[in-house]
């Protein structure tokens, strides 16, 4: 209060947020699977401006991923079924961790496993070496592989057990990534919270299908895939708001964010930070644009900081 609009735009610290013991310079993160390992798009964006980079899902062994076609555009969205293609944790440690030493943004490593043991083994490998990883996002919600954590993500007890096992092994942030493909996302979120998660992120992609009526075939090799993009924004907003009402830990919101208005909606719904995903495919520099435009949004609004906006959506009447 008392600052001119211009002064408030310049005061970028009004974007700062904290989760657990970690402070992020802004709430604009890039979502897992949409930004590679973090530096692929460096020609098109200054990645150090991002609040955080959430990496591709890293698995215990390297994965080739699913056969093509893996991607199809749908109205205001897209369906993917990549199948967790990645280099595996050992190569990740060897090749990517040294690269991160030169970055000033926060790195959140996304981990996927086929069973409890794999998640634990990956986390232990990471904890046994020194790195500047700020935390882990745990993928318990990939819809595109036969064994990709979904068995955890749809079950409160297994979510709790996994979170607890990981919590015992790290002081770094643990963010459990929740699936919208469940009947009650809040109960899964509560299970993660009670077992010691620092935050939950929501939502992963929504199970979807695209059919070619001429050939009578699915447009995706695995028949079903994960729907993302603006088409799922209303689903993401509802999930975040339901979680916000019942949980006390921070929520990292995502699903169809392409503009500063979308960011504002997710923050008002209850997100402490947001992740931009599909929009990176269209413009890998969109994260930077959102950081600038959400600063302007706050400066032109009645809010002083982003933090005071969190969860402040009101009922219509």
């Amino acid at each position, binding site marked *: 209060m008392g600052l001119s609009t211009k002064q408030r735009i310049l005061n970028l610290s009004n974007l700062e947020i904290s989760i657990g013991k970690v402070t992020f310079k802004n709430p604009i993160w890039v979502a897992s699977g949409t930004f590679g390992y973090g530096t692929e798009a460096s020609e*098109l964006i200054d990645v150090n401006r991002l609040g955080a980079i959430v990496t591709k899902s890293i698995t215990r062994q390297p994965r*080739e991923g699913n056969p*093509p076609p*893996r991607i199809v555009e749908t109205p205001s969205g*897209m369906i993917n079924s990549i199948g967790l*293609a990645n*280099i595996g944790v050992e190569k990740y440690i060897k090749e990517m961790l040294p690269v991160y030493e030169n970055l000033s943004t926060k790195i959140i490593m996304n981990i996927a496993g086929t069973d409890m043991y794999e998640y634990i083994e990956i986390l232990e490998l990471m904890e046994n070496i020194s790195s500047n990883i700020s935390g882990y996002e745990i993928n318990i919600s990939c819809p595109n592989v036969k064994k990709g954590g979904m068995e955890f993500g749809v079950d409160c007890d297994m979510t709790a057990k996994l979170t607890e096992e990981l919590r015992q092994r790290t002081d770094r942030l643990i963010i459990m990534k929740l699936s919208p493909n469940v009947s009650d996302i809040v109960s899964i979120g509560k299970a993660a919270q009670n077992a010691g998660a620092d935050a939950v992120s929501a939502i992963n992609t929504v199970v979807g299908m695209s059919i070619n009526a001429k050939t009578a075939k699915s447009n995706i090799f695995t028949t079903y895939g994960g729907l993302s993009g603006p088409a799922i924004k209303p689903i993401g907003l509802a999930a975040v708001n339901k979680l916000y009402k019942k949980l006390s830990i921070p929520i990292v919101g995502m699903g169809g964010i392409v503009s500063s208005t979308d960011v504002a909606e997710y923050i008002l719904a209850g997100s402490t930070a947001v992740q931009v995903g599909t929009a990176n495919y269209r413009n890998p520099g969109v994260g930077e644009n959102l950081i600038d435009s959400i600063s302007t949004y706050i400066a032109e609004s009645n809010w002083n900081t982003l933090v005071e906006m969190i969860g402040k959506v009101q009922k219509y009447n």
Partner: protein
Amino acid sequence: MLIERANIISNIEVAHNIWEMFFEAPEIVNDYKGPGQFINILVEDNWNHPLRRPMSIASAKDGKVSIIYKIFGDATNTLSKKQSGDTIEILGPLGNVFTNWDNGYYPILVGGGVGLPPILNLKSECEFNKIDHTIIIGAKNSDEHFMTHNPENDIILTTDDGSCGETGTVMNPIDRIIKEKHKAYIFACGPEPMLVAIRDYALKNDIPSQLSVESYMGCGVGLCQGCVISKNNIDKKENSYHEQYSLVCLDGPIYEAKDIKFEQS
């Protein structure tokens, strides 16, 4: 690789449902490495079509880029409505280039359907560098051709229905020219059945060939891992870490025929 907002200079229908667009993109021309590279076009600024459309560069000189595209659906139809003075946002130039065409071989350039642009681009380079070559273009019928059948000048058209040029597919003239010429090298871009036929022929007859392949593409820059093609060997390419698959956006779109395999072959 960069993003440039380009002014459209012209956009005209050159054959049935086939359009040619020229636009000003000096920065992309500056970064351009040669025939085979592509750009990723944002057809509309709204989110009706979230993903960019990958399109081969048909020419890139004097600050101007051209593309040739066929109307397939909503997005390409929208593109065809753009007029001189409108702008579109381009990401590029992306991908690798045809090689060896200027290395003592006799280039046989083969294009079909939407696979024409990189082939016409390579033809221009051959002409500029005074390299003898033959171009063979296949289509369903004469409506889809915008060049003239001119075998005396090594321009051969084929049509499925015989309405112009030679009747049948591109395979007959390819076989004939290869038997006539010394050290032939095939460079091809077109629909997958055509590339499958050329690949099978080239491997069987031990003719070197480079194919420009198509793939569903999410981003064009290696982020989404969507645009894979199956590899025929497990040699690791420079930009992909996979053994079984190669990313078309980073490692392609040009591959030696022996290095890849198609799902239907």
